[in-house]
């Protein structure tokens, strides 16, 4: 194809998206569109998979059966969400193995929030309430994104995710209304998860390199800073309702903006964690790679069994 033809196709392509038409796997698309989608969708899938680890840590120690079944179901959903997203990503011509390889070699990123440890039961509450809360704010606009398979996966993810946040908030309510020790535990979890949750919504608009192109492709509908403000405005009253304090001395209602002003985010910490120096980066990666490597014989055995069965079937036909 000549350069001019490609330019022409690109123009038509951008117009289709502007008209809110969906792009499907076999449609022509610019290479950059394909690459950007593989990157974002796979990061998203990796985050779901790694995101199971901090919570898996507490399944066996959940304080009641009610909490245990909820946590199990949540972690199972996350596995499911990872799978929806991986298979949506594969429609762009990348294999599952390549995607895993990118995760395991550290080439691909996942949400840095999962590089923090879960040291008390209250962390299960804080993660559901704050981390899933922030994730939902990020994900809802993606139900309308331009790439069909991604949008369809996100619709399913969003539908399932709202229970995740509610079960987390319920844990926090119970602890906040419990003994003084339980309330302290809830406050401590909020103190540790608040700032990383704000960071989770991504670097400030000034620092965000992908925003403009992503807006055009509807991979993003609102900027990181707008999403963060939305998250803060929605979460602060929830904390007040259950008598917990947001760990930000600069947090203040701004009557004029009808929004909360908030303190400075420690972006150095964010970039440190992104670069692999968070408290749990090594641990998470090790757990993931171990699970993959130690599962290899199972995958091989299943394949060998399937082939043997197939052969036997073919012999019978002859």
């Amino acid at each position, binding site marked *: 194809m000549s350069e001019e033809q490609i330019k022409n196709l690109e123009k038509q392509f951008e117009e289709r998206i502007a008209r809110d038409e969906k792009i*499907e796997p076999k449609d*022509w698309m610019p290479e950059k569109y394909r690459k950007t989608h593989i990157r974002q969708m796979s990061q998203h899938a990796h985050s779901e998979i790694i995101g199971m680890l901090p919570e898996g840590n507490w399944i066996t120690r959940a304080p009641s059966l009610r909490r245990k079944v909820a946590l199990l*179901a949540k972690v199972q959903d996350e596995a499911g969400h990872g799978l929806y997203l991986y298979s949506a990503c594969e429609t762009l011509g990348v294999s599952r*193995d390549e995607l895993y390889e990118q995760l395991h070699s550290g080439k691909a990123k996942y949400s840095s929030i999962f590089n923090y440890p879960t040291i008390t039961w209250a962390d299960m509450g804080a993660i559901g309430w704050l981390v899933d809360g922030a994730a939902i704010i990020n994900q809802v606009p993606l139900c309308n994104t331009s790439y069909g398979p991604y949008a369809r996966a996100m619709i399913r993810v969003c539908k399932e995710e709202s229970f995740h946040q509610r079960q987390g908030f319920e844990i926090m309510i119970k602890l906040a209304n419990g003994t003084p020790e339980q309330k302290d535990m809830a406050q401590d979890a909020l103190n540790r998860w608040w700032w990383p949750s704000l960071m989770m919504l991504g670097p400030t608009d000034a620092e965000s390199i992908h925003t403009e192109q992503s807006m055009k492709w509807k991979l993003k509908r609102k900027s990181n800073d707008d999403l963060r403000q939305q998250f803060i405005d929605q979460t602060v009253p929830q904390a007040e309702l259950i008598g917990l304090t947001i760990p930000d001395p600069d947090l203040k209602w701004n009557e004029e903006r009808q929004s909360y002003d908030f303190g400075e985010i420690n972006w150095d910490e964010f970039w440190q964690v992104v670069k692999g120096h968070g408290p749990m980066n090594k641990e998470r990666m090790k757990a993931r790679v171990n699970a993959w490597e130690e599962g290899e014989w199972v995958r091989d055995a299943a394949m060998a069994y399937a082939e043997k*069965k197939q052969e036997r079937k073919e012999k019978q036909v002859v």
Partner: protein
Amino acid sequence: MSKNWPLWEIFVRSKNGLEHRHFGSLHAADAEMALENARDVYTRRNEGVSIWVVESKNITASNPEHNGEMFEPAQDKVYRHPTFYDLPDEVKHM
């Protein structure tokens, strides 16, 4: 070096009376495992009463680049629609 599990396309009937609809895909060693995995991946909340699995390589798809020759011939055949035909006003339902 291990062999990768093939890809399967999953179709789910959400209730009797409705058709099976494409839900997504997944990897599995064989059809039986694909069915079991599909149950766990796509019907955790009673989304289905029946599942079909088809190995992806067995699906032949039309090419969007040929959408012109493929679908446009139907565009100028308005006489296939009831509104193409003139009826006197007196005929209320037909």
